[in-house]
């Protein structure tokens, strides 16, 4: 018998096969018992078989190696897929999971195997998961089932995921459910923000419209109320006694206040509904300030308040809506005078050209603003202390309107104050107006 071709001894596996083959050969009838010619044929046959086997073996080993490579490749693809892959038992226990899936839950893969997936579902969504699993198991024709729910990660944070599941069947028996899990937290957050924004915008618009309607409705009764008081005052119902005249004046004052309030509400609702259009034109800053001051002079004198101006000679003309700038100035200067101390004080208006902006500040030596109240300043219907309206008047809308008007021009407004010492309001307006549509 010829020595067989050298076999690679290094591999145990091959070695064992060889031992087995030797053992088999030993049990076979010895060649001496065979007739001469027949033996030769038999040996030849055996050798052919041997070579065939060796070749097959080589083939197998090569296939095996290829398979290993392919398996590695697919494990890579599986593990690092952009979505999580889970395999669940019928009870919802995690039997297999890729790295992405484990990453979604923020936990190592080892710790996940054989744990119930339900442990990671936000409790209020647990039924969604339960139904989803059940549907996946029961669905006809292995139809793909999907659902969206929230998962609680190991660190406690929550993510929105979409599950897509199919059951795996062998011989018509459901063995497992295979599920793709994709994270859409970012998309969901963006969507939620968008929806929330939309909701707020709609609510805001509805509120503005309501305010506009309300102020319209309020005018009708006020028309008669002011009208009849005026008729009384003018003696159309007979001569009034001094007391009657005083009462009528009180009624008229209150009515006038109501009218101011209605106008302010209308103003703010128009601004908010985007209905105020600025009439932008070239206007002189010092001239506008002087014109505004002439409206307040009398009141300032009554309060013993000195009005001072310091104009920057560099700042003369800007492009703005003069009427609205006057409104801004009036609100600020009027407030400064109104909140002066009882013995009087000084209100100083300072202008300054700062680059492309005109800066105007209104400083008073008045009662000042407590620090904790600073944030309420520009809010609607906020007067800093209850009772302020009775003592100082005003609707609580002035500064909110002022702020909106400044911002609509593309400027900014802010306040600095020391309680008991005074307040400075400063606003800026662009010297060259922004083009329409840029202001928003």
């Amino acid at each position, binding site marked *: 018998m010829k020595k067989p071709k050298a076999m690679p001894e290094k591999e145990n596996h091959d070695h064992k096969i060889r031992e087995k083959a030797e053992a088999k050969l030993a049990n076979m009838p010895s060649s001496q018992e065979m007739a001469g010619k027949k033996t030769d044929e038999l040996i030849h046959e055996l050798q052919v078989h041997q070579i065939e086997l060796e070749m097959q073996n080589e083939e197998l080993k090569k296939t095996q190696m290829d398979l290993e490579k392919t398996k590695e490749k697919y494990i890579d693809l599986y593990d690092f897929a952009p979505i999580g892959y889970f395999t669940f038992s019928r009870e919802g226990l995690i039997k297999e999971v890729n790295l992405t899936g484990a990453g979604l839950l923020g936990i190592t893969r080892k710790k996940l195997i054989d744990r119930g997936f339900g442990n990671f579902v936000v409790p209020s969504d647990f039924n969604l998961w339960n139904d989803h699993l059940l549907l996946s198991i029961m669905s006809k024709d292995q139809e793909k089932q999907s659902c969206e729910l929230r998962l609680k990660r190991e660190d406690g944070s929550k993510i929105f995921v979409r599950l897509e599941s199919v059951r795996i069947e062998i011989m018509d028996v459901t063995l497992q459910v295979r599920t793709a899990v994709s994270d859409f937290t970012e998309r969901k957050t963006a969507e939620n923000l968008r929806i929330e924004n939309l909701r707020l915008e709609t609510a805001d618009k509805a509120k503005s419209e309501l305010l506009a309607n309300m102020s319209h*409705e309020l*005018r*009708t*009764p006020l*028309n008669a109320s002011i*009208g*009849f008081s005026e*008729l009384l005052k003018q003696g159309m119902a007979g001569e009034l006694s001094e007391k009657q005249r005083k009462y009528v004046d009180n009624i008229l004052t209150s*009515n006038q206040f109501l009218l101011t309030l209605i106008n302010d509400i209308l103003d703010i609702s128009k601004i908010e509904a985007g209905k*105020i259009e600025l009439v932008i034109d070239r206007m002189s800053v010092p001239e506008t300030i002087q014109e505004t001051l002439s409206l307040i002079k009398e009141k300032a004198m009554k309060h013993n308040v000195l009005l001072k101006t310091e104009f920057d000679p560099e700042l003369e003309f800007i492009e703005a809506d003069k009427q609205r700038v006057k409104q801004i100035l009036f609100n600020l200067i009027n407030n400064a005078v109104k909140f002066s101390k009882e013995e009087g004080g000084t209100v100083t208006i300072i202008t300054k050209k700062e680059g492309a902006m005109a800066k105007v500040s209104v400083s008073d030596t008045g009662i000042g603003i407590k620090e904790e109240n600073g944030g309420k300043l520009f809010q609607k219907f906020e007067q800093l202390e209850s009772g302020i309206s009775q003592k100082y008047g005003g609707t609580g809308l002035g500064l909110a309107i002022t702020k909106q008007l400044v911002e609509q021009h593309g400027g900014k407004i802010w306040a600095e104050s020391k309680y008991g010492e005074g307040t400075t309001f400063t606003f800026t307006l662009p010297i060259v107006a922004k083009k329409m549509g840029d202001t928003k």
Partner: protein
Amino acid sequence: MTKALVVDDDPLSIEYVVEMLTTCGFMAETAVNGEEAVKKAQIEVYDLIIMDIELPGMDGAAATRIIKSKPGYENTPAIALTAYAMKGDRERFLAEGFNEYFSKPANVADFLKMLKKYRK
């Protein structure tokens, strides 16, 4: 005597305007909606119309348009007295054919001045 028609759905507003009209020596009649105003204007010819805008049914502007298209009304002054007090409302109502516009609450002195202007 100058005859005026006052149209408003608010009774107190009507009373107040009528009060001023009679003080100024007008004879005043009233209507509470646009349809009634048109009907009254068909029966009688008025020298002055004081019209609220927001009315149940036909609004004041429409009623005024119809009245003004009737024979004898070509030159009759129509005054809008309305709670529409937004910027642009004055221009809007003047363009719709009103001769004058007063927003509610109207300034009494100005309103009386206007009445005296139209008194015959």
